[in-house]
């Protein structure tokens, strides 16, 4: 007991500072990224899945509330904003390719965005999910801040929507590569655009693992799908 006391005191102190969970988040990602690289970026070895699984295990074992974890992890989470702005840089570098694909992008955006919303709502409804769950699923393919705001206006649960958005992102980023390979689609602009429309930022992160071209188009799709979905639901109350 006397031996353990200093270590316990150190733990009590560290568990309260952001440093511990910030370091744990970075360390989990370093491990996850190394595993992903070792497996030649295999779609199933998704770094988001590996790192979050490690951390979920760690906070469960140590009995740490998510709120305490997030106090440290928020510094990483915060960088999502600047990273979204940074998507503008490859977009501008690939501007010739983007301009050449404006028409396919517009058509694919409208078709993909409506499919994402319509199919999720229809399936959840068909399976008899309660109304708040159906509403929470409607915007699952959109970037989290938009998805949560719309979910609230539809009578959904914003916190559940945030989780469904993450799960959709992970699902899309795992499925996109095998699906596109099976279909024989070799156009990385089209592949990336599909990844960004179906699975927002996490799909974009996967697309950047594959190529800059795919990542650029995924980033544009994420931004445009967010804008289109927000506009659609903004107009919706006026139709009723």
């Amino acid at each position, binding site marked *: 007991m006397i031996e353990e006391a200093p270590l316990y005191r150190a733990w009590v102190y560290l568990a309260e500072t952001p440093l511990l969970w910030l370091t744990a*988040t970075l360390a989990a*990602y370093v491990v996850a*990224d190394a595993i992903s690289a070792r497996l030649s970026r295999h779609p199933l070895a998704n770094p*988001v899945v590996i*790192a*979050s699984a490690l951390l*979920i295990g760690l906070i469960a074992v140590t009995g740490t509330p998510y709120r305490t*974890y997030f106090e440290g*992890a928020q510094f990483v*989470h915060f960088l999502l*904003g600047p990273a*979204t*702005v*940074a*998507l*503008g*840089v*490859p977009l*501008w*570098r690939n501007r010739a390719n983007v301009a050449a694909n404006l*028409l*396919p992008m517009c058509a*694919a955006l409208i*078709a*993909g965005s409506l*499919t*994402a919303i319509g*199919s999720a709502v229809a*399936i*959840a409804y068909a*399976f008899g*999910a*309660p109304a708040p*769950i159906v509403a929470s*699923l409607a915007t*699952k*393919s959109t*970037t989290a801040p938009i998805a949560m705001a719309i979910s609230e206006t539809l009578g959904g649960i914003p*916190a*559940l929507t945030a*989780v*469904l958005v993450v799960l*959709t992102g*992970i699902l*899309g980023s795992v*499925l996109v590569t095998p*699906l596109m390979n099976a279909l024989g*689609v070799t156009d990385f602009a*089209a592949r990336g*655009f*599909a990844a960004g429309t*179906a699975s927002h930022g996490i799909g*974009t*992160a996967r697309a*950047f*693992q594959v190529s800059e071209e795919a990542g650029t188009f995924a980033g544009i799709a994420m*931004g445009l799908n*967010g*804008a289109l979905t927000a506009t659609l*639901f903004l107009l919706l109350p006026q139709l009723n």
Partner: protein
Amino acid sequence: MIQALTLLFACQLAGELVVRTMALAFPGPVLGMALMVAGLAWVGRTSPALDQVADGLLRNLSLLFVPAAVGVVQQAGLIAQNWLAISAALVVSTVATLLVTVFTFRATARLQARHRT
């Protein structure tokens, strides 16, 4: 590096400012991205430092989603209660969206190519 980071933050801040003051249901960072593109188009070139910071962030974009992904545990109960409807909706809708998007993109691109020749 600090200049490039400052530029990224400033674009986001400007985006958030516009969104808040106009009460738009639109994410500030996405507007910030548009401002970044507009700025680059105006100047006509990127800087090596901006390229380096942007590419560094985007190469590790997966890291930035980890804190949100750990939050999945918070809703585990609600998801477990509705697991069948939720998993069916997520899997089928994600696959359908990927397929519809990529087919529409390719079909439109082919149509466009035929018109040009």
